[in-house]
């Protein structure tokens, strides 16, 4: 008890204030100035910017390490290098943990980890979203096993909270080594372009262990994860942009899985017609067009927040609102790789669909997809296993699901992009839709292979048979005749019908999930 001073109340108040100010000063003025020079904020400045003014309450400010080895008994690490607490973001409760790089470089020690995992447990218990602001030089090796174990507490806490509360990681500084499993296991990672780094090991470690020479930027920067690995969902320009993007994302989410996503007042006519859709689709099925303007015209006020924008670009996903309701949009991009579903596109869409389902966000698919990608490269890397993730995601989902078949809806991609059989509540097709088991040229060349081969004029016979198959099946009519398509619609009515369907399905989320037989979970092809 030697640290506790005696004395009068005034003396005790003064002592308290001194200690408190020391912690609030983080790593000190010089260290913070250095950050400002690089265009970065301190951990406390970030939290101040993130939360509504005056709403942040800190928890665990006084926590400190207990290891004494390697000089740690004399170490001064304000708040253990991580500021944790709760406050309001646009009036809604959110819990956050901000790593402080100025305090022993934000290193992750036993009590740093304990603060983080405790904050996540707190958020889960309250049913409030959790946000981590990652900025740490890595493991505090001086603490040995104590550090290692606290990684595990963090992972366990966040995994237990997964699916109960939305969890977002803001990669504003480095996060390298085993610690990087923390951001990657959150629902969303927003990475700051110049300063955010993530990876299983940094360049120095990679060089000593494998001989590979690579820079930190190339190995762990935004391109590595937003473009190549598909582990960063959104790229931000700087600290403020990162925090703003996080706030925007939170605006689409409910606070937890028992609540509905917040519906806002809609200033865009829910029945608005979109005349240009009636002439949008090219005459030749081989010609691509850009899906982005189409998505933006369908959703409220053209506002679309894209997820995984730079990854697996043949597929598109993101959040928007329809008549004020948050929805998840799932689509294809005919301009990129024909809008095909390859391994990466399947992973991208499946993870997005499952997040939406976990948090009661209705799904709308806008389909123009020729197929799952074929060929040895895709087969050997497991396109079937990855494609299966999409099927599981749709079939397991209990949120409202509405599909618009714009053009191609062929083969496996027919259910991979949502159809009735896999769980859609409503499917509408444009008259331009081609909904069938396979494209006419492939089908005709298989069914009539012998006839074409033995014909006097094989080319002519082939062309005639392709035309026949195309006229019979490459349309929305067979599917609509069987009831697999609810209606073939005027393209200009797309927004109207999605909104009417969402109205009808308003109560679905309360009903369907609980009507299912009990099981732990489905055995999705991971």
């Amino acid at each position: 008890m030697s640290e506790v001073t005696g004395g009068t109340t005034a003396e005790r108040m003064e002592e308290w204030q001194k200690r408190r100010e020391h912690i609030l000063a983080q790593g000190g003025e010089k260290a913070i100035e250095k950050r400002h020079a690089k265009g970065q904020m301190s951990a406390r400045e970030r939290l101040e910017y993130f939360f509504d003014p005056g709403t942040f309450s800190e928890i665990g400010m006084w926590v400190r390490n207990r290891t004494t080895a390697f000089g740690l008994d004399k170490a001064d690490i304000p708040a253990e290098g991580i500021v944790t607490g709760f406050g309001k973001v646009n009036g809604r409760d959110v819990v956050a943990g901000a790593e402080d790089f100025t305090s022993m470089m934000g290193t992750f020690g036993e009590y740093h980890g304990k603060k983080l995992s405790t904050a996540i447990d707190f958020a889960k218990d309250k049913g409030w979203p959790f946000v981590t602001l990652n900025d740490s030089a890595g493991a505090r090796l001086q603490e040995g096993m104590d550090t290692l174990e606290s990684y595990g507490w963090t992972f366990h806490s966040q995994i237990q909270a997964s699916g109960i509360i939305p969890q977002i990681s803001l990669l504003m500084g480095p996060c390298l080594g085993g610690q990087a499993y923390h951001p990657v296991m959150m629902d969303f990672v927003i990475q700051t372009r110049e300063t955010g780094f993530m990876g299983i090991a940094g360049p120095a470690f990679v060089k000593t262990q494998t001989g590979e020479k690579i820079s930190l930027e190339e190995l762990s920067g935004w391109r590595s994860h937003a473009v190549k690995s598909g582990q960063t969902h959104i790229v931000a320009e700087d600290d403020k942009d990162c925090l703003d993007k996080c706030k925007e994302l939170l605006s689409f989410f409910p606070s937890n899985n028992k609540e509905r996503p917040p519906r806002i007042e809609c200033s865009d006519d829910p029945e608005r017609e979109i005349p240009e859709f009636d002439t949008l689709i090219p005459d030749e099925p081989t010609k691509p067009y850009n899906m982005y303007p189409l998505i933006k015209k369908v959703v409220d006020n053209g506002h679309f927040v894209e997820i995984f924008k730079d990854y697996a670009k043949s597929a598109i996903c993101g959040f928007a609102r329809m008549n004020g309701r948050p929805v998840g949009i799932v689509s294809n991009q005919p301009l990129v790789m024909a809008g095909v579903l390859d391994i990466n596109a399947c992973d991208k869409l499946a993870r997005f669909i499952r997040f939406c389902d976990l948090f009661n966000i209705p799904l709308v698919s806008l389909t123009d997809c020729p197929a799952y990608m074929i060929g040895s490269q895709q087969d050997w890397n497991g396109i079937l296993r990855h494609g299966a993730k999409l099927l599981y995601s749709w079939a397991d989902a209990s949120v409202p699901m509405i599909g618009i078949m714009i053009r191609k809806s062929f083969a496996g991609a027919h259910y991979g992009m949502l159809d009735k059989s896999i769980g859609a509540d409503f499917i509408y097709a444009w008259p331009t839709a081609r909904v069938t088991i396979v494209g006419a040229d492939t089908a005709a060349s298989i069914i009539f292979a012998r006839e074409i081969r033995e014909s006097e004029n094989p080319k002519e016979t082939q062309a005639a048979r392709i035309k026949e198959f195309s006229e019979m099946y490459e349309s929305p009519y067979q599917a609509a005749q069987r009831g697999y398509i609810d209606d073939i619609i005027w393209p200009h009515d797309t927004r109207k019908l999605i909104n009417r369907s969402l109205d009808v399905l308003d109560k679905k989320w309360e009903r369907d999930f609980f009507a299912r037989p009990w099981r732990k979970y489905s055995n999705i092809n991971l």
Partner: protein
Amino acid sequence: MEEIMEAPLPGKILSVDVKAGSAVDEGDMICTLEAMKMENPILAPIKGTVKEIVVEAGSTVQTGDKIAVIES
């Protein structure tokens, strides 16, 4: 900086829109690749000069085959 452009999927080159030495803007058409029954525009990822163009109309490419090199 050099950007090596690779075929994103296997298919046949329908047409080539640039020559070695052509100046290109980001997003300019380099060539059209027919694959999965679609004409896929292959666009310049950066602004620069075409240093090398490996394919010609009619070439068959596999995923990852070099199409062109753009130098900025």
